[in-house]
């Protein structure tokens, strides 16, 4: 709760809204005991007094009634009606939505058709029809507004409930012996409460506006009782002669609704877990760079990464995802980058062309040199002209990495034409050729297909074709086969290997599978906790791993043909990169660890084989 309040008030606008609304609600609550004129006391002699006149702070209306008093009483009424309407609509809508969404099937179908039917009316028609039946009056307006908004809540909550009803913990609850009612009450409802609160807090303002609107039309509160809407409605005829009678209630509505909206947005942001972590930030065109010094090139290399440091700055935490990583890639070479989830492989790869999402990503140090030219902090236009032309990427999940709404042919043509001013027809021809190169059958027809019409393997072939579009020198493949089935994976790997031989491509191949590395890569680099812990020729590393982590990782992964066995597990967990221990990151899990391992910086030492360990398994 206190976390919630802290988050809420971190948002200054929401805090402002809360204060304004607080003051208004307080005034509304205190209205009966404040020394005010009775709101309905008429005094025709004092009609249309201007604000700040004697005894009437805000002036008087067409019957000489005190505006301040009427304003406060009206505010009371409007607030009460708005909140009540939101509460009724929210609860009724949530109940309908939860039941329809949880049970699904016919219940859902019938309910939702009914809801759709109601939503086929522009909302005010329904409200007007309801008022027509019930007759004008504030209570009837409240009912109308609440009823009209039920479908919106029901739909919204149903969608969320469907998502929750298919989560595995619901299945788990059923297996644990829970019945439907119990699951609804203890498993589903607690999870949708935040959604309902968000929906209500972001619509209360709207409800207040709507009830005010009906009153404005003369269909809500009836004289002499007045809410803010009917005050405005009555004042309309004197708009030109006595504008203050309109402005006073109008501004009050504006203030209430605005403060409610600001507060509602704040509540939404504080409750929505995605916004909480700042994840809804828009990634910029290129990763932010905050680099103090440029390290000298540590050697030759077609592509050289020197002491690269990339961090994620989330709130006060700093995740050192990539920590002084140095790599080099020669023309035509395949370098494998292997490591467990979260070890920083992807971030390393994305840093090369400034594609790390930023915020929260920042490159804080190091250099990436392509043919000797440093790319970190290079002007956007230079980076853009290299992306896809010199260095191309293949990503993991081919469904989410292709644009779902463009034909694959158009995506290929675009890739060609951003870097080369060829005609559309020419580009089209080349796109077909590319698809043939990656062995997509019937390429001439497939260019017109959309990504969702292809299988996973075919989509990944398209991804490869796109990477090849401009004949790049380097391809960075970030787990291109992890999302695929083994048989398809074998096809894709064979294709990549063949293309590499034929075109002389250099590949940086990221994976967590030693088998794949062993089959495809010339050299391998092992990452742990954001650092390279070992590199060397693939065969040497796999056959005689020097770093304890590499050795034990290889040992704990079962290999086909090994038969039934107990695996040599590594105890403990991979480190969290926001609180890396001093010294060796593997020390807490290493059975060779000595005191020296937990102190200072451990160098990556060696020539062709390098290892970052004080007591390596074999001498590098």
């Amino acid at each position, binding site marked *: 709760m206190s976390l919630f309040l802290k988050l809420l008030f971190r948002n200054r606008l929401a805090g402002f809204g809360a204060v304004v609304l607080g003051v208004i609600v307080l005034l509304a609550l205190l209205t009966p005991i404040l020394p005010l004129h009775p709101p309905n006391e008429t005094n025709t002699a004092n009609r249309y007094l201007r604000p700040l006149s004697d005894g009437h702070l805000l002036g008087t209306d067409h019957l000489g009634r005190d505006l301040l008093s009427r304003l406060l009483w009206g505010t009371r009424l409007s607030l009460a009606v708005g909140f009540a309407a939101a509460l009724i609509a929210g609860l009724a809508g949530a109940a309908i939505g939860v039941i329809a969404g949880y049970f699904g099937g016919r219940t859902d179908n019938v309910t939702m058709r009914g809801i*759709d*039917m*109601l*939503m*086929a*009316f*522009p909302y*005010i*028609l329904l409200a*007007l*029809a*309801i008022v*027509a*039946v019930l007759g*004008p009056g504030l209570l009837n307006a409240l009912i109308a507004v609440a009823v009209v908004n039920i479908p919106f809540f029901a739909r919204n909550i149903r969608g969320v409930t469907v998502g929750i009803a298919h989560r595995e913990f619901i299945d788990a609850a059923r297996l644990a012996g829970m019945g439907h009612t119990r699951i609804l009450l203890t498993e589903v409802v607690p999870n949708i409460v935040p959604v309902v609160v968000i929906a209500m807090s972001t619509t209360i*303002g709207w409800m207040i*506006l709507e009830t005010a*609107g009906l009153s*404005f*039309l*003369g*269909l809500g509160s009836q004289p002499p009782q007045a809410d803010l809407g009917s005050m*405005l409605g009555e004042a309309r005829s004197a708009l030109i002669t006595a*504008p203050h009678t*309109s*402005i006073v209630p*109008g501004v009050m*509505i*504006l203030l209430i*609704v605005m403060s409610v*909206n600001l507060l509602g947005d704040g509540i939404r942001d504080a409750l929505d877990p995605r916004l909480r972590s700042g*994840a*809804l*930030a*828009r*990634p910029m065109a290129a990763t932010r760079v905050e680099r103090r010094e440029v390290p000298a090139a540590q050697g030759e290399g077609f592509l050289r990464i020197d002491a690269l440091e990339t961090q994620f700055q989330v709130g006060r935490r700093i995740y050192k995802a990539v920590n002084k990583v140095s790599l080099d890639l020669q023309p035509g070479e395949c370098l494998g980058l292997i490591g467990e989830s979260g070890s920083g492989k992807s971030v390393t790869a*994305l840093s090369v062309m400034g*594609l790390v*999402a930023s915020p929260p990503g920042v490159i804080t140090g190091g250099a990436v040199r392509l043919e000797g030219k440093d790319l970190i902090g290079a002007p*956007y236009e230079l980076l853009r*002209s*290299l*992306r*896809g*032309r010199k260095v*191309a*990427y293949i*990503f993991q*999940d081919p469904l989410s*990495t292709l*644009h*779902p*709404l*463009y034909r694959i042919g158009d995506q290929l043509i*675009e*890739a060609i034409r*951003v870097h080369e001013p060829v005609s559309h027809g020419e580009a089209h021809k080349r796109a077909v050729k590319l698809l043939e190169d990656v062995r997509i059958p019937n390429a001439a027809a497939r260019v017109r297909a*959309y990504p*969702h019409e292809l299988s996973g393997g075919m989509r990944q072939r398209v991804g490869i074709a*796109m990477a090849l579009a401009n004949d790049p020198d380097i391809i960075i493949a970030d787990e291109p086969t992890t999302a695929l089935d083994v048989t398809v994976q074998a096809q894709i790997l064979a294709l990549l290997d063949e293309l590499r031989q034929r075109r002389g491509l250099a590949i940086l191949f990221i994976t967590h599978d030693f088998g794949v590395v062993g089959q495809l890569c010339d050299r391998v680099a092992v990452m742990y906790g954001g650092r390279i812990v070992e590199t060397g020729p693939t065969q040497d590393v796999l056959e005689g791993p020097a770093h304890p982590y590499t050795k034990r990782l290889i040992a704990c992964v079962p290999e086909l043909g090994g038969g039934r066995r107990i695996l040599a597990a590594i105890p403990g967990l991979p480190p969290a990169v926001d609180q890396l221990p001093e010294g060796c990151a593997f020390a807490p899990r290493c059975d060779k660890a000595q005191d020296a391992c937990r102190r200072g910086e451990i160098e990556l030492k060696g020539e062709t084989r390098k290892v970052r360990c004080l007591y390596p398994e074999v001498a590098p």
Partner: protein
Amino acid sequence: MGGYILKRLLSAIPVLLGITVIVFLIMAMIPGDPATAILGSYATPENVARLNRFLGLDEPLWRQYFIWLGNMLQGDFGRSFALNRPVLDEILDRFSATLILAGTAFVLCALLGVIAGTISAARQYGFADKAITFVVILGISVPSFFLGMMMILIFAVQLRWFPVSGMYSIWGGGDLPDLIRHLTMPAIALSVVATGVVARLSRGAMLEVLRQDFIRTARAKGVHERRVIWGHALRAAMVSIIPVLGIQAGFVLSGAVYIEMVFQWPGVGRMLVDAILKRDILLVQGGVVFIAACYVGFNIVVDVAQAWLDPRIKT
């Protein structure tokens, strides 16, 4: 695509029938009988009974419904007793005025909203974003009728840029420039709230899309940032913006009721409010069915646009 449109049109038939049933039932629940309302409270019981028979009100409810429905299908919406003219004539006269007002406001809100939202997302936390966010919050918080009144006070009364109210000048006028002069203020007042909502939603949808993997792919290809935003991202965001535009059309149509009151615009909204206050049931019934039917038609257009944009929808 043609097949999809046909399918969508056919699926509208049950919705339309449902609408007529809902409207009919609501109207049947109205307390007091129309005959008394028409003849006044001093009418003799015989006269009331005669009129009831004449209006078909002594029939069972379901027969009344089918008679009413059959008549409507033949273009006979009945006669408004308060105005003493055929309901359909009155609706058609008024509806064109509403269509001009609401249509203009809708186009404004769709264009401005999407553009503002996109800029806002592209410049997240920048000055443009803050400015747009502020205006949007203000826009969705101000009651449109109050905004209309203030616009009259400032731009019509004080500055005399625009006429205070009405659709055409009483003397002379009647041409397009005259209409535009009269239309400007109400259309803007009407579109403000919807623009705010659309802008907000577009911003959210764009931010959501900009985090997606395929945006990273586009950037990795070397696509220009401008095209990444206004091409790749906006196109994908439109998939979630378009349904909102459909809903907003309903809100614009609804808001038109207030604006027509404030600006004395001769549209259906004002007609309906008057009819309700005068308990002119046939006019209310006819008006509601007519507008709802138009709205259903508009939503078909929205769905077709959506299907055209998103190939994943089965056409």
